[in-house]
């Protein structure tokens, strides 16, 4: 992926395509294009703001997601595929760190609404858990089936949802094809959903909120961070074992 890699390959395979001058010229073109694109993105942000009261802010966060995913080669699919395919757990550990950090934030935001003793749950201010920040959503057989199908699809196509969009920006033609069928699949999924929801075996409509399930914030925090910590240790051990360090 990186330039140093491709240049070594080129040198060794003796099919030298470009001179250093051509290379420098290409880089200059890309850098200029990058600056032009940056200006256009700002202008687009101004337009979005005219359409949506929080548009420019949302736009900046969205661009931030893309920039961060690309720069750090962060990939959710790889975090689940690599342990099996290559034995590497570096991304798995990175995902666990991100989950733990995000948990701290959601915990603070949610606690403000639920109250430390969950006393606000079910009152006028907070009718049900699905109104909380984050997606506290229905969990059941549909989650298992959906997640399983999604996992197969993400590995085969070479990118999950955020990964597909990121790779489209990087110039992968495969992901431009994948998004068309991702959209088609979403339509099929939407058509199937009322049928699934009508089946009590396939669909359970109630969300399960850990602080409520475990009887308070303290046990929920212990379970949440305890599990994440245990998984981090496991991933670290597994990665080292596979790399032959243990």
């Amino acid at each position: 992926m990186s330039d140093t890699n491709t240049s070594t390959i080129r040198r060794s395979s003796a099919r030298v395509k470009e001179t250093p001058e051509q290379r420098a010229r290409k880089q200059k073109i890309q850098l200029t294009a990058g600056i032009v694109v940056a200006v256009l993105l700002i202008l687009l942000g101004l337009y979005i703001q005219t359409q949506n009261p929080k548009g420019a802010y949302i736009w900046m966060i969205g661009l931030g997601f893309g920039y961060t995913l690309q720069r750090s080669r962060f990939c959710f699919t790889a975090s689940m595929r690599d342990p099996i395919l290559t034995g590497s757990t570096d991304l798995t550990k990175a995902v666990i760190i991100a989950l733990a950090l995000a948990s701290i934030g959601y915990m603070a935001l949610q606690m403000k609404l639920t109250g430390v003793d969950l006393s606000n749950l079910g009152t006028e201010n907070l009718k049900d858990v699905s109104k909380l920040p984050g997606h506290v959503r229905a969990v059941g057989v549909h989650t298992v089936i959906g997640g399983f199908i999604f996992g197969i699809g993400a590995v085969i196509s070479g990118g999950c949802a955020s990964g597909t969009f990121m790779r489209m920006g990087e110039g992968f033609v495969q992901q431009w094809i994948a998004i068309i069928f991702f959209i088609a699949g979403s339509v099929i999924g939407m058509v199937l959903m009322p049928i699934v929801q009508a089946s009590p075996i396939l669909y359970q409509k109630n969300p399960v909120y850990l602080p409520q399930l475990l009887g308070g914030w303290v046990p929920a925090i212990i379970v949440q961070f305890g599990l994440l910590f245990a998984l981090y240790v496991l991933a670290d051990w597994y990665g080292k074992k596979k790399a032959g360090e243990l």
Partner: protein
Amino acid sequence: MDEKKKYPFHEKYFKKEWSYATGSVLLAMLALALVIVTGGSWGVTGPLGMWGGKFLELIGINADSWKAYNGSLATYNFWKDQTAITDLGIVLGAFLSVLLATQFKIKKIKSMKNVWAAVLGGLLMGIGARLALGCNIGAFFTALPAFSLNGWVFWISIFTGAAVGSQLLKKYFM
């Protein structure tokens, strides 16, 4: 390597890759910054079904009358849809990132296998995300840290799916 000496500023700020940990911290911060200000949490796949429905309307199929849409297509507006805006942001943010790093390259399809992988993988992801009420972001990165059981269940399920997918990938698509 000589380029490094020639343009140390560009190398340091635009070309150098970030560590995974940097990615972890920034993604968590951005996701929280989004929900704090807008009240809406980060998702990705929600709008895809709407775009598909809009396309069907465009080619003359009245999808809006289907139970799945139930009239929601008529009032759908891309720029009012927070998730649609961040989705476009991911594509163009990544595009900007590779351009500034001077690493943009159209990566062509190598064989028909890649096409089938994209077709099948895309379809499965679309269906799966609707059934699970979200994708690796909406049903996982925005659900698990929100102390919701569906995030944990989704993680286990997607991991199992990824294991099966890896075998299929090795057998048929590589």
